[in-house]
Structures are given as structure tokens and as C-alpha cells.
């Protein structure tokens, strides 16, 4: 009994710290695009982030959490020694947290997802044995780390090309923007709502049929698109800031759309990244409470709530400043580009969340931005920095693993 409380207490503390870190640092990457393009003020961004990060974590965070909790390590193998899983998961949280702290201090762009997965694989392979790792699952995750930025880039390129063709290259871009932007709003709202309904409503207690789910998503998306259309119609051209083609006003029309994609992005981020903090916590809780290592145990809802709350607290305490700083640096990503990148990234991430694959939000977003760049949408992208971001993949996984191994052996000798 004593030991259980210590384990759960430690895991909860580490987990909340991790969630706090994600809220403080990581959310900035998801939200700064909207702030930088002036689609949202910093206050609005915080509000949107708080609400939608939480909703994403709570409604759609379950699948990825369960992957982190029990699909990477072969838990059946540990049925005789459940405490090893507890040490390992605690060590993983500590390792990922430590690595993120080191990286943040040095300004290295590392992914929370990569560090936690690296850490879990590390402790399992070395601390328990090579066979303890579900290599098939790990291979799928590793593959998805290559696929997700590429996919997001491709979607972003297609979306931005369609914007070029339908709106920007026309004789009257403003009229075209007013006509087509509500359609984009519909698609953005539809994607996110559908995933929420399909993945989230079950553990809130609602169970809809597939047809009903689609219908509900369409209805909600139409309502949101109509609200957007109303907001757009109130935008009047500004003769002082416009040139012949009214691009200044066109961007303001896109800014309405970007409010929706910002919500999607926050939702997507919450749905995928909350697992990095609470996946290991959930694993510790289920083992410590039952004393057995079972893969059947259900994920307690309060854990998801805790993770969501942790992210929001991180956001409120520290994330505000980070978003403001990052937002000031992103001025090139005007709403017509920013929305394409955000929508592509959010769609990719939400699909991954739905299938339970932990991917990096930052890398996916970078992939999407590159996609817009390939469509000649961005004035200047520094490829050196892009290279550094992707290099940090390679470094983060072994770093997380090595730290987890150290912490694992340390905890095993210290804890009861």
C-alpha cells in the first residue's frame, strides 16, 4: 500500500510536470502561427489554446495514451515483475523531462514525442531485454515520423495551390476570397468535428452510428461555416492599405479562417501530445492499483483530465510569453499561408491521434510550412534551421533512451 502511493504520487508529479512543460513550451509552436499572422491577439490565442488543447486532450487523447502506455513495451512479458514497468515508466518520464529541459536551455528544437518514445524503448530494451520491446509497433511509429511531415507537406501544398488558383491569381481576389473561404472553413471544421465524434464521444458516454456521426459533423461544420461567412461579409476593403488587388483585405478574410484552423491545431496538439505526459502515468496507475500487468485495463478518465489541466496551467504560467515571442518572429506566414500549413498539420495530427500513433506536432507543422514553401508561398525559409530541426530527431531518440536507462537502474536500486 505504502509503495503504491509513492509510485502513483511520483508518476503523477512527473506526469504533471511533463504536461506543464508541453503547455509552457510546445503549445507555442502550434499557436504562434496564428498570433504571428495577427489572426488572433495573444489573449485570444491563449483562450483558444486553453479550451481546445484541453478538449483535444480529453476527447481525442485516449488512443495515443494507450499506445504509449502498453503498446511499446510487451507488458505480458512483465506479468511476473510488474514493478519493473513502474520503474521504467517513471524513468522514462524523468528522462524525457530532463532531456527537454536540457534542450530548451540550449535552444535545441526537440520533440516531446520523440524523447518519450526513445526513453520507453531504451529502458525496455536495456533494462528488461530486447524482446520486451514491441519492435513492430516501434517500427510503425518510427515510420510515421517520416510519413507525417511529408504527408502534412503534401496536403499543405495542395491546399495552398488551390488557394492560388481559386483566389490569389484571379482578377478580383477579394470577391473570390469571400466566396471560397467559407468552404475552407467548412472542411476544417468538418475534419476536426468528425474525429472528435468518432474518437471522443465514446468515453464521454455517447455512442453514435457511423452515419449519424458524419451527419452531425456536417451539420456542425455548416453552422461554423455560416458564422464564418457572416464575419467575412462584414469585412470592408481598406483603401489606405490596399493596392490594386486588395491583398491586405484578402488576408483579413483569411484571418477569419485562421481562427478556425488555430482551434483545430490546438485541438490536434492536445490530442496527440497529452499522451507524452500521461501515457506513462496511466501505465503506472494501472499496475500499482491492480498489482498486475494487464493490457486490458481501461484508461481512467481523470488521468486525461489531469493531463489536459497540466497543459493549460503550463500555458497560463509560462506559455503566454513563449507564444508572444515566437509570434513576433513569424510574420512571413500571412493568414493565406498560415491557414494552409495549420490545416494540413492539424489534419495529419488528428488522423494520427485517431489511429493512436504518437507523432511530433512540431515536425508535422514544419513539414506543412515547407509544403507551402514548395508552392512558392513563403518569401524565405532557412534550410539550415530546417536541417537542424530534423537532425534533432536523430539525437533525441538515443538521448532519451540513455537517460531512461540510467534513471531506470537508479530507481530500481532506490525504490522499494
Amino acid at each position, binding site marked *: 500500500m505504502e509503495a503504491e502511493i509513492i509510485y502513483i504520487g511520483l508518476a503523477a508529479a512527473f506526469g504533471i510536470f511533463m504536461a506543464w512543460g508541453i503547455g509552457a513550451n510546445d503549445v507555442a509552436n502550434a499557436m504562434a502561427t496564428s498570433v504571428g499572422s495577427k489572426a488572433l491577439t495573444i489573449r485570444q490565442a491563449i483562450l483558444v489554446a486553453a479550451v481546445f488543447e484541453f478538449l483535444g486532450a480529453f476527447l481525442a487523447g485516449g488512443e495515443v495514451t494507450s499506445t504509449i502506455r502498453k503498446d511499446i513495451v510487451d507488458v505480458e512479458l512483465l506479468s511476473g515483475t510488474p514493478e519493473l514497468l513502474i520503474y521504467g515508466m517513471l524513468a522514462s518520464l524523468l528522462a524525457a523531462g530532463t532531456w527537454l529541459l536540457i534542450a530548451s536551455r540550449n535552444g535545441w528544437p526537440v520533440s516531446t514525442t520523440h524523447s518519450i518514445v526513445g526513453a520507453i524503448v531504451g529502458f525496455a530494451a536495456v533494462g528488461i531485454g530486447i524482446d520486451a520491446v514491441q519492435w513492430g509497433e516501434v517500427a510503425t511509429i518510427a515510420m510515421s515520423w517520416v510519413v507525417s511531415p511529408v504527408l502534412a507537406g503534401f496536403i499543405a501544398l495542395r491546399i495552398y495551390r488551390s488557394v*492560388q488558383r481559386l483566389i490569389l*491569381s484571379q482578377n478580383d481576389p477579394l470577391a473570390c476570397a469571400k466566396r471560397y473561404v467559407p468552404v475552407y472553413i467548412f472542411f476544417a471544421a468538418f475534419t476536426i468535428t468528425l474525429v472528435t465524434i468518432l474518437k471522443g464521444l465514446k468515453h464521454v458516454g455517447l455512442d453514435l452510428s457511423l452515419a449519424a456521426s458524419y451527419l452531425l459533423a456536417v451539420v456542425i461544420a455548416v453552422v461554423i461555416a455560416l458564422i464564418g461567412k457572416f464575419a467575412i461579409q462584414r469585412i470592408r476593403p481598406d483603401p489606405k492599405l490596399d493596392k490594386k488587388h486588395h*491583398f491586405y483585405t484578402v488576408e483579413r478574410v483569411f484571418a477569419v479562417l485562421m481562427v478556425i484552423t488555430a482551434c483545430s491545431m490546438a485541438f490536434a496538439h492536445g490530442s496527440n501530445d497529452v499522451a507524452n505526459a500521461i501515457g506513462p502515468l496511466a501505465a503506472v496507475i494501472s499496475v500499482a492499483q491492480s498489482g498486475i500487468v494487464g493490457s486490458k485495463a481501461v484508461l481512467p478518465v481523470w488521468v486525461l483530465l489531469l493531463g489536459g489541466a497540466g497543459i493549460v496551467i503550463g500555458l497560463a504560467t509560462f506559455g503566454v510569453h513563449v507564444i508572444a515571442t*515566437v509570434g513576433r518572429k513569424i510574420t512571413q506566414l500571412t493568414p493565406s499561408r498560415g491557414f494552409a500549413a495549420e490545416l494540413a498539420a492539424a489534419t495529419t495530427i488528428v488522423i494520427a491521434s485517431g489511429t493512436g500513433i504518437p507523432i511530433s506536432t512540431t515536425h508535422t507543422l514544419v513539414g506543412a510550412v515547407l509544403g507551402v514553401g514548395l508552392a512558392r508561398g513563403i*518569401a524565405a525559409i532557412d534550410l539550415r534551421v530546417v536541417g537542424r530541426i530534423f537532425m534533432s530527431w536523430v539525437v533525441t531518440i538515443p538521448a532519451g533512451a540513455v537517460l531512461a536507462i540510467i534513471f531506470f537502474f537508479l530507481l530500481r536500486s532506490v525504490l522499494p
Partner: protein
Amino acid sequence: MANSVANIFGSSPVMPLEEHVDIAYRCTKQLNGLFKAVIAGDWGEAAEYRNMIETLEHEADDLKKEIRLHLPRSLFMPVPRQDLLELLLVQDKMANRAKDVSGLVLGRKLQIPDAIADDFLEFVKRNVDAAKQARKSVRELDELFVTAFRGAEVSLVESLIEELDQIEADTDSRQADLRSALFAVENSLQPVNVIFLYRVIELTGEIADMAERVGRRLELLLAH
């Protein structure tokens, strides 16, 4: 890790390029006043114009260096980096020519004969017009980047460049006329002064040539 997404954006060269062409144009524009002062024989005022030209030329030079510094090879841009750098270079040359002309006129206290004075002023003005049209064309660069170099905006810039070409052609014919007008009266003038008059006419004409090359460079950007 917080600023990773932010840092992938290099600094955009678009607004600095527009600013640079504006300075270069304002530099050439001083020539109108300078020649008026010279013809009126007011060398004090001419010297003021000369100073203004030097200041603006320096400003353009500094901005040119600044832009180059912020365009490392690792930048991925919608148009080739080299084309942007060459656009910058010809923009800068408009200012350089204005400085050369003013230096020569002031240094030699150049006398402009009354017989060609009006035509001379008009010729200078047309060259400045060419620089102005170059500025107008380059100022569409931000819109070109917004539209990703497609569609209606491209046609707009193409028409601006066409107009620029017409102005340049006009300066060419005026230059020829001015030379023959000078030739008609050159025997009554000081030979050394005449030599430098020809030289100044030639250098001034190069402002429009450089403006036209700004147009060519812009066209190259459109072609990508």
C-alpha cells in the same frame, strides 16, 4: 525548442528590396534640381543637390550590403537567390550613375549651353522618369510574393515593365537628338567642356539603361 518553428523563417528580402529601389529613385531624382541650378548658374544650390545625392547613394549602398548579409545560401525562396541579388545590383547602379553624373558636373563646373538647355533638362527628367517607373515595378514585388508569381498580378507587373521599356526608348531617342543638337553648336564652345558634356549625356542616359535592366531582372523573376 520553443522557437524552432519561428526560426525556420529567414528574413524576407522583399520589403528591403522595395525600400532600396525607393532610395535609388530618390537619388536620381535630385538630378532634376541639380541641372536646373547648374543652368541657372547657382553653384551653391547645385552643391546642395550633390550632397543629397551622395547621402542617398551611401544609404542605398548600406542597405545593399545589409540585404546581402541577410540572404545566406541556405535560404529557400520562391525565386532564385541569384536573381534577387542581381536585381539589387542594378537598382543600386541607378544611384551610382546619379552620383557619377553629379560628381562630374560639380567637379568640372560644367557649362550647359543655352541652345540645348531645355532639351537637356527634359532628357534628364525622362531618365528620372525611367527610374521612377522601375521603382513602381519593383514596388509590386510584395504583391508578387503574395500571389506566388501567378495570375493577374503578373500581368500587371508585365504592363508596368512594358511602360518602362517605352520610357527607356524615349530617352534613347532624346539622347540622340541632344547629341546632334550639341554637335550643331559645339564649334562655338570650349572643346574640353564639350567633351565632358558628351560624357555627362552618356552617363545620364545610363540611368534609364539601368532602370530598363531592373525591368529585365523583374521579368526573369516572373518567368520562374
